[in-house]
């Protein structure tokens, strides 16, 4: 997934970005609303992780602005404000979930995945395609009953397919899922990871639509 993390606390933002990258999510980290607006104007994100108390404004105002513009990017609020009324205010402003600091990284990831699945129209984290069983919540995959280990970027790619089984994803869409800002993009990176995935889960599971993109057969 391509994520935007808006967090002004450097130590926390740093740890969250590293963790999310390690989990296979291309994560852009910004520390204020101005940078967040600029990032969202240039990149489509799958999920926004939003702190509320930011140096140049309140996160809820940013969220309301997004929703007013018709932007439906899923948003999870990460904040130290734990009052029920704060939570209701955040959810009413258009947030999809609300996580109170401090939180476990595992809990953050579980909620992130749940929100992403909900938006993809497939809230069920278990997916079976042929002899391949994918558990998106636990991030494990079984081929013919045998567990297969995937790297973070292989997961990021498979996650994009699994959230939209049968849908055709373009190469730029897949690239967005693979890279955070600043990382170098090789012209054949997507093909390399598609090839690796096919070797691990079966060559006929991901189809290539020449000139259009790729599709997970479901």
């Amino acid at each position, binding site marked *: 997934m391509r994520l935007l993390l808006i967090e002004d*606390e450097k*130590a*926390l933002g*740093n*740890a*969250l970005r*590293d*963790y999310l990258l*390690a989990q296979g999510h291309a994560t852009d980290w910004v520390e204020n609303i101005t940078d967040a607006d600029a990032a969202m104007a240039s990149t489509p994100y799958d999920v926004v992780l939003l702190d509320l108390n930011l140096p140049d404004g309140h996160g809820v105002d940013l969220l309301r602005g997004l929703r007013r513009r018709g932007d439906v990017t899923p948003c999870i609020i990460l904040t*130290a404000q*734990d*009052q*029920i*009324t704060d*939570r*209701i205010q955040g959810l009413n402003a258009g947030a999809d979930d609300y996580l*109170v*600091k*401090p*939180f*476990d*990284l*595992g*809990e953050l990831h*579980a*909620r992130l995945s*749940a929100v992403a699945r909900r938006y993809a129209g497939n809230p069920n984290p278990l997916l079976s395609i042929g002899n391949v069983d994918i558990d998106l919540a636990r991030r494990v995959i079984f081929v013919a009953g045998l567990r297969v280990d995937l790297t973070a970027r292989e997961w990021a790619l498979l996650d994009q397919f699994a959230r939209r089984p049968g849908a055709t994803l373009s190469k730029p869409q897949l690239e967005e899922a693979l890279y955070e800002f600043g990382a170098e993009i090789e012209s054949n990176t997507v093909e390399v990871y598609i090839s690796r995935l096919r070797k691990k889960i079966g060559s006929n599971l991901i189809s290539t639509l020449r000139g259009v993109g790729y599709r997970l057969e479901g």
Partner: protein
Amino acid sequence: MRIFSRSSLTGRIVSRVTVCVFVLWLVATMLAALVINDELGEAFDTGLQETARRALPLAVQFVMNRADTDKTVYVPAFGNGGGSQGRENGKDDKDGNGSDEYLIYQLRDKSGKVLLRSHDTTDLPFAAPLDSGFWEDRNFRYYTEPSVSGTLFLQVAEPIGHRHEATFESSLAVLLPLIVLIPAIVIAIWLNVRSGLMPVRRLRDEIGLRGRGNFDAIQLDETPHELTDMVNAINMLLVRLRAALNAERNFAANSAHELRTPIASALAQLQQLLLEIGEASPYRDRAKKVEASLNRLRRLSEKLLQWSRAESGIGRSVQSHHLYPIVDMVVEDIKRSNRFENTVRVEKDNVALYAAIDPDAFGICLRNLLENGLMHGSRNEPVVVKINGPNRIIVENAGSVVPPDMLSRLMQRFERHGNHPESVGLGLSITATIIAQAGGQLELFSPRPGKSDGFAAILSLN
């Protein structure tokens, strides 16, 4: 009686006023006795004088007309069988008639010889000199009235004791009602003092019935001006106290709140480190211990934040709120957190849950009760939230029975049952404080009602 104890204001006023009334009445009686003595003296003197003047012509005529002028004649009292005729001396000097006549008299010539005397005197002349006017010795008060020619003197005497007796009895008549009326006076004073001290009692009740954390200004209608200054001083003190406590609570709340982000940073960094060093790292155990400590610090800061909010009176609410959304939100939040191995089941009646409690405060209470059940309850049965009527919530869990002595202490701060690593010992205390502020009640039962095991917390809201 308690009201007459030294510590009772009513008792003190009643006893002091009673003593004052008694002493003042006594002084008044003494003054009255002096006045009575003086007035009675004048009246008795007038009586002596009038008697002497009216009797003198009769006595002179009687002496002039007698046959034997050498003998003293005495006049018996009425009803003594002698009529008004005089008797010669020596025949019956003491008739012993027992009459209560106090005036005695003698008619004496200018040599002092007694010519005529009343029945209660002797032939010996009075001690009073033959001078016109009053004279007094230790036993009698005399009045001497000379005849026109100055040859005869009528002396009328009255016992001094008689005058003293009259004065004493008159004074006693003033004093006696006080002795009889003392109980009535005490009751009357007590009733009036009690009535007068009603504003003091209202002030006492207003202060005494306040819950913890209520520092609102005291407002009493028709406060007497003697109490107004005191009420103003107390209100000023409450303002200062509230400001000091608010500063302390804000400090605690802000500290706890500001701690969250650094703890979140440290926890996230550590969990990321745990992922990076892998399962086989020799530092993993130590890192896991640091993670456990950070998690405990996280829970402690959360509870301190809740505690400071509870102490600031967060529970009070002037309006009622629908609480089902709060129940759903808290239960969903706990389920998603994956902190507990057990789960929560909600059983709702078809009745709206509607109560006068701040929604955030209610959320804190329910979260604490659920965490309590999930931490200490059996993992084989879910923790059950029963919405029992419009303002009654039961949170119960299976598990071992809490001993009665421990159960009675569980609502005290830092009291813990068991040694669950997530337990801080503040949750039930915070909940009880908030519910009391909202006018409700928290009751704990173990075993849970209708079962032989487990624990139940019942929230009765207002």
